[in-house]
C-alpha cells in the first residue's frame, strides 16, 4: 500500500491540468453570472463591460416581480419529482422481476425492453401526442410525467443491480418465511439504494431538462416547465435588448437545482460513483 500511495494523491501535473480544465468548465458559468449582474443598457453597448463593476441586482429584482418563473419552477419540480418517483417504482419492480423471477419468455421480454433504448423520441412523439390528445392528457401533470416513465434504461440498470445482490439473501429471507413481496420490499429494495440514487439523479435531470415533449404537450403558459418557459422568453425579438435580464433568468432557473446539487453533492456524487452496478 505504501508504494501505491501516489495513486491516491493528485500529482502537481494532474492538478494543473485539472485546474485548467475546471477553468474552462466554469468560465461560461461565471460569464453568465457576470452578465446577469449588469444593466441591460450597459450590455447593449458593450458586453465586455461585464468584466468590470458596477454590478446590479436589478435583473433579479425584475424576475421576482411577477414573472411566471416561479410557476414554471414549480411545474418543473412537480414533473421531475413525479417522473423520478414513478421511474424508481416501476424500474425497481421490473428490474427485480427480470433479475430474480423465472417465467416463460423472460429473456425475450428483456431484449424487447432493451430495444427501447434505441428508439429516438422523434419516432414516437407525434403518435404519442395524438394518443395523449385522445385521453385529454395535454396540459396536465400526468401528461408531462407519463412519457418519462417508459424508461428502458432504468429497467436495465436496476435489473443489473439486483443481479449483483447475492442470492443467499433471497434464500435467507425465503427461509425466514418472507413472501415474494416482503422479500422485494423489505430485504432487497433497501439494498438497492445506491442504484436508486443514481437512477433517480439521472431521471430527475433528464426530466428537468426535457424540452421537446413539454413544448408540444404543455401549451399553456401556466403549465410550462422551466425549459419551455425560458425558451418562450429566449426566442423572441422583444427580449434581445434584455441580455442581462435573460441571463438572470437563466441563473435563476439553474439556481434551485444547483443549490440542491451543492447540498447533496456528496450523496449524489457518492451514490453515482459508488453504485456498484453501473454496468
Amino acid at each position, binding site marked *: 500500500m505504501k508504494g501505491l500511495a501516489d495513486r491516491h494523491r493528485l500529482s502537481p501535473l494532474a492538478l494543473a491540468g485539472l485546474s485548467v480544465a475546471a477553468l474552462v468548465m466554469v468560465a461560461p458559468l461565471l460569464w453568465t453570472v457576470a452578465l446577469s449582474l449588469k444593466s441591460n443598457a450597459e450590455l447593449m453597448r458593450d458586453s465586455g463591460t461585464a468584466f468590470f463593476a458596477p454590478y446590479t441586482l436589478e435583473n433579479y429584482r425584475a424576475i421576482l416581480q411577477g414573472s411566471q418563473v416561479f410557476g414554471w419552477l414549480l411545474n418543473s419540480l412537480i414533473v421531475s419529482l413525479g417522473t423520478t418517483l414513478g421511474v424508481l417504482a416501476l424500474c425497481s419492480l421490473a428490474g427485480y422481476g427480470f433479475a430474480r423471477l423465472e417465467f416463460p419468455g423472460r429473456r425475450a421480454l428483456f431484449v424487447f425492453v432493451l430495444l427501447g433504448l434505441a428508439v429516438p423520441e422523434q419516432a414516437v412523439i407525434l403518435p404519442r401526442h395524438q394518443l395523449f390528445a385522445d385521453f385529454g392528457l395535454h396540459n396536465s401533470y400526468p401528461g408531462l410525467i407519463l412519457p418519462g416513465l417508459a424508461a428502458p434504461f432504468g429497467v436495465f440498470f436496476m435489473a443489473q443491480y439486483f443481479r449483483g445482490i447475492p442470492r443467499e439473501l433471497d434464500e435467507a429471507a425465503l427461509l425466514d418465511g418472507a413472501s415474494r413481496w416482503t422479500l422485494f420490499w423489505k430485504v432487497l429494495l433497501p439494498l438497492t439504494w445506491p442504484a436508486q440514487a443514481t437512477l433517480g439523479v439521472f431521471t430527475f435531470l433528464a426530466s428537468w431538462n426535457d424540452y421537446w415533449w413539454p413544448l*408540444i404537450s404543455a401549451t399553456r403558459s*401556466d403549465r410550462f416547465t422551466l425549459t419551455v418557459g425560458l425558451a418562450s422568453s429566449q426566442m423572441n425579438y*422583444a427580449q434581445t435588448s434584455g441580455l442581462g435580464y435573460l441571463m438572470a433568468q437563466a441563473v435563476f432557473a439553474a439556481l434551485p437545482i444547483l443549490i440542491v446539487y451543492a447540498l447533496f453533492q456528496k450523496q449524489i456524487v457518492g451514490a453515482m460513483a459508488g453504485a456498484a452496478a453501473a454496468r
Partner: protein
Amino acid sequence: MKSRALLRLAAVAIMGAAMGCAPEERRTEISVQRFFGECGAVYGRSTEVAAAEGECGIVTTLINRFAAENPDLDVDANVVAWPGYAQLTAQIAAGDPPDLVTMHQSVISDYQARGLLEPMDDLLRQAGVRPEDFTAAGRRGVTKEGLIYGLPWDTVGGLYHVNTGLFAQAGLMTNGKPVVPRSAEELLEHARRFKSATGRPYLIQSQVNDPATHVRNLYTYLLAQDAVVFPDPQHIRLRTPEARRVVELFRTLEREALTTRNQDYPAATASFLNGEGGVFLTGTWMLGPFEEEARTPGRPLHDSYAVIPYPRLWGRRAAFVDGHAWVAPKRERSPEQRRALARFIGFMAAHNFDWSRTGHLPAFRSVVESPEFQALPHRSDIAPLAAAGAPLPSFVQRQAAIESMVGEELASAITGAKTVEAALRDAERRVNDLLARL
C-alpha cells in the same frame, strides 16, 4: 430531516396541482394565445397601455386592460414561444386550441385551407367592426377565398433604419434627409463611399438564424420587378434573371464587406444601436425602440435616426409586407363565449392605435389617417409602405416553411458557400418538393 423536507415539498406540489385543477367560478372563460414575448416581470398586472413600450409591453397591458374592463369574463392569456405555431398545431391536433390566437397573415392560409379556422365575418359584425375600415393590405391579408378569417392588426414590413450621423459623415445627407440610392449600382457606390468615409459597413444585417431578412429583401425586389414568384399554388419560380440580380447585389455587398457579417438578430440590433453601420435592414417593429434611442442623449443614435421604406432599385416601388391578425381556431363555443370573443375583438380593434406605437402600420384606415398617428415620429416617412406593400398571393400555403428554406439557401449564396445559381436551384427544388405534396 431530509424526508420531512421532501414531504413538505410533495405537499406543496400536490396543493399546487390541486389549485391548478380547481374549478373556476362561473365566469365565461376565453383563452387568448399570443406570441410577442413574455414580459410579465415588467408589465405583470399593468393596465397602463399608454405607458407601455414595445410589442410585448403593449400587448400585455392591452390584454390586462381588457380583463380589467370585463370582470365578468375570465381571460386566460397564454404566451407561447416565438412564433408559436408548433404549439398551435399541437393544440389543434389535440382538439384543444385557444379561442383567439395571434397569427401572421401569411400563415392564415395554412390553417384556413385545412378548415381549421372559423370565418370571422359574423364575429366582426357582432363586434361592430367593419371590414371596409381595414386598410387594403390588412384586408388582403385576412381574406381567403372571399371570406374574412381574422382581425387584421397591423402591417409589417422591412425598412431602412438609417444612422443619419454616419450618413452625414459619408456625405449622404441632403436637406436633413438620407440620400436614397435609385439603382443597385448606386447603392453599391453609396456603400463604398460610406465605408471609406466612416470605416464602417454601410449595411447592418442579421444574417444568422434569420431567414426572414434575406427573404424580405428578395421578395421585395422581385415584387418591384413584377416577377411572378408563385405562378400557381404548386410552384415557386426562382431561377429568373430578376432573382439572380437581387441575390448578386447582396452577394457583392457581402463580398466587399459593405455589410456586417455573421451577426444574428440581437448582434445586428446592438450594432445599429452602437452606431457601427449605416443602415439596419429590419422591420417596422424596431421603429419604436430606435426612436426611443434617438431621443436619449448620449446614445450613438441620439438625434441621428431616420427611417425610410426600401428604396426602389429596380422596376417600381414595392415592399413585401406581412401582418399580424387575431384568428379564431374552429371549436365548440357557447353563445356567451362568442359574445366574449366579439368583445375582445372589438376591444383590440378599438385599440389599434396603441398597437401602432410599436412601429407597425395600423390595420385600420381611420387610424392611419388619425392625427395622433400622424403625430408619431417617422410615420409619414414610412407611409408609402402601406400603399406599396403587398403580401404573397393568398393561395400560397406553408409560407413560413418556404421562408426558412429559401432563406437558408439565400444565406448560402450570399456568404459564398454556394453559387447564386446553385442556391436558387436548390431553393426552387426544395420548395416545389414541398408544394407538390400539399
